[in-house]
């Protein structure tokens, strides 16, 4: 029997909103979204993953429906919290699926507790922690302005007239000829504009920069698939080069006509890569001749 429900987990006093889908007795797949989003960010993979796994798609503290961490977040704190979540739900190694900042968080979990992770799927993961110039010039100032009620009010008045978020989001987030549906676009946009999340956005922006993973990837032995949109203008493909250079064991796939959201923009190709990777027996991925 398959489930589809939302549960609030309480881990060391921190509430986490978790969307659960799939087989209750299946291997756990933990889905970790990125900056300014929610569990919805990886939802296109849920039908596929649910066929074999018990999927836990979290709202990271401060995002979606999960309350902020009282003492402020760092990537390491997110990783520690999710390590505790994994240990409270299963005794078997899990599959981590992380998008963007969630990819960086997955890597932190893998470095801290490799024994808890069977394999990883990382979609456009932040590696250096530096986002693209395009994001820094366009979206970030906008996010900062939204932190303050006065500027937020001004933006809220003019936004419908100017379609400013649409224009700001399209370039950095999506490919030129993106296939993302209008509904999905609206939902992603709504997530980036949730009220009262200005502070967590600023915190996460800094947290990623302070968590530069360059020079640290070579020791990761967990079999991993890294998917990147060829037109990702959010996390620059410079970070994909770091993966290729430092972590040649990772299976790096660059997808044409996808930007920062290949799971929405090129769903068939993305799902094919994920299905193929998850269906490869773990002993074949790990064997050395």
């Amino acid at each position: 029997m398959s489930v589809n429900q939302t549960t609030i987990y309480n881990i060391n006093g921190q509430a986490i909103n978790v969307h659960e889908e799939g087989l209750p007795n299946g291997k756990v797949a933990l889905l970790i979204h990125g900056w300014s989003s929610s569990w919805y960010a990886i939802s296109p993979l849920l039908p596929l993953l649910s066929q074999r796994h018990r999927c836990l798609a979290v709202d990271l503290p401060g995002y979606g429906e999960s309350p902020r961490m009282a003492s402020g977040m760092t990537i390491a704190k997110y990783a520690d919290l999710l390590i505790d979540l994994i240990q409270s739900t299963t005794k078997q190694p899990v599959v981590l699926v992380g998008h963007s900042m969630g990819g960086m968080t997955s890597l932190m979990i893998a470095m801290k507790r490799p024994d808890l992770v069977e394999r990883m799927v990382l979609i456009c993961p932040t590696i250096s922690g530096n986002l693209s110039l395009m994001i820094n010039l366009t979206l970030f100032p906008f996010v900062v302005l939204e932190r303050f009620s006065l500027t937020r009010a001004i933006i809220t008045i003019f936004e419908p007239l100017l379609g400013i978020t649409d224009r700001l989001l399209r370039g950095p987030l999506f490919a030129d000829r993106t296939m993302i549906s209008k509904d999905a676009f609206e939902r992603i946009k709504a997530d980036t504009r949730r009220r009262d999340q200005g502070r967590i956005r600023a915190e996460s922006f800094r947290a990623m920069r302070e968590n530069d993973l360059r020079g640290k990837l070579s020791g990761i032995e967990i079999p991993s698939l890294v998917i990147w949109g060829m037109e990702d203008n959010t996390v620059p493909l410079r970070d994909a080069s770091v993966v290729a250079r430092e972590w040649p064991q990772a299976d790096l796939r660059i997808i044409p006509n996808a930007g920062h959201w290949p799971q929405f923009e090129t769903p068939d190709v993305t799902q094919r890569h994920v299905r193929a990777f998850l269906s490869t027996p773990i002993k074949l991925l790990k064997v050395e001749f």
Partner: protein
Amino acid sequence: MPKIISVHSFRGGTGKSNTTANVTTLLAAEGMRVGVVDTDIQSPGIHVLFGVEEEAMVYSLNDYLWGKCDIKQAAQDVKANLKAPIKGQIFLIPSSIKAGEIARVLREGYDVGLLNDGFHKLIDDLQLDVLMIDTHPGLNEETLLSIAISDALAIIMRPDQQDYQGTGVTVEVARKLDVPRLLLVVNKVPAVFDVSEVKARVEQTYNCEVAAVMPHSDEMMTLASAGIFSLHYPNHPVAGMYKQIAARLVA
């Protein structure tokens, strides 16, 4: 529990497809539902043994790997082609024999995980008792996968120096990938050889069970892959050896 059985050889021309087809037929004759997948995408051939004409291949394994069809759609019920009383079922998933489609796989490659997914889907959808995998000679992605997921593996070799060395490589790979049951079959042994001596030497060399030492057979050469040997010559000693191999593989 359904079983996955792979038949492999390091070099070509050892009799892999003939062994696969005969074991398949013998298991089906006992009432089992058997699937056969031709993963020898580069040089497919087992469909010939099962009497499948090129025009009859609507979908092939290639189409499944390219996402053009469900793997079940590529499965053909080939029992009727054999014109013999068989209690069970035989489903063949052929590889494409079109030059362009073979070339495309070589050029683009494919994801081996999809193959694994397909194997398991076949077992579920067709309610198979046994899935037989006929592989390409040597080591490549699909042979590694098939070895990794098999419950039993038969490695076919000839008494030939090149085969001896290559078989050593395959045995090593199979051991690293923890295949639960590993069998060797020595095939095309010249009549002048002492069978028990060959068996003892091969077993000692690889520290592995030898399921059969099969003589070179004129009848097999004459049949020339036009059919299943065990059905054409049910009382021939070679047919008896195929039975022995089949029994050891599902034991």
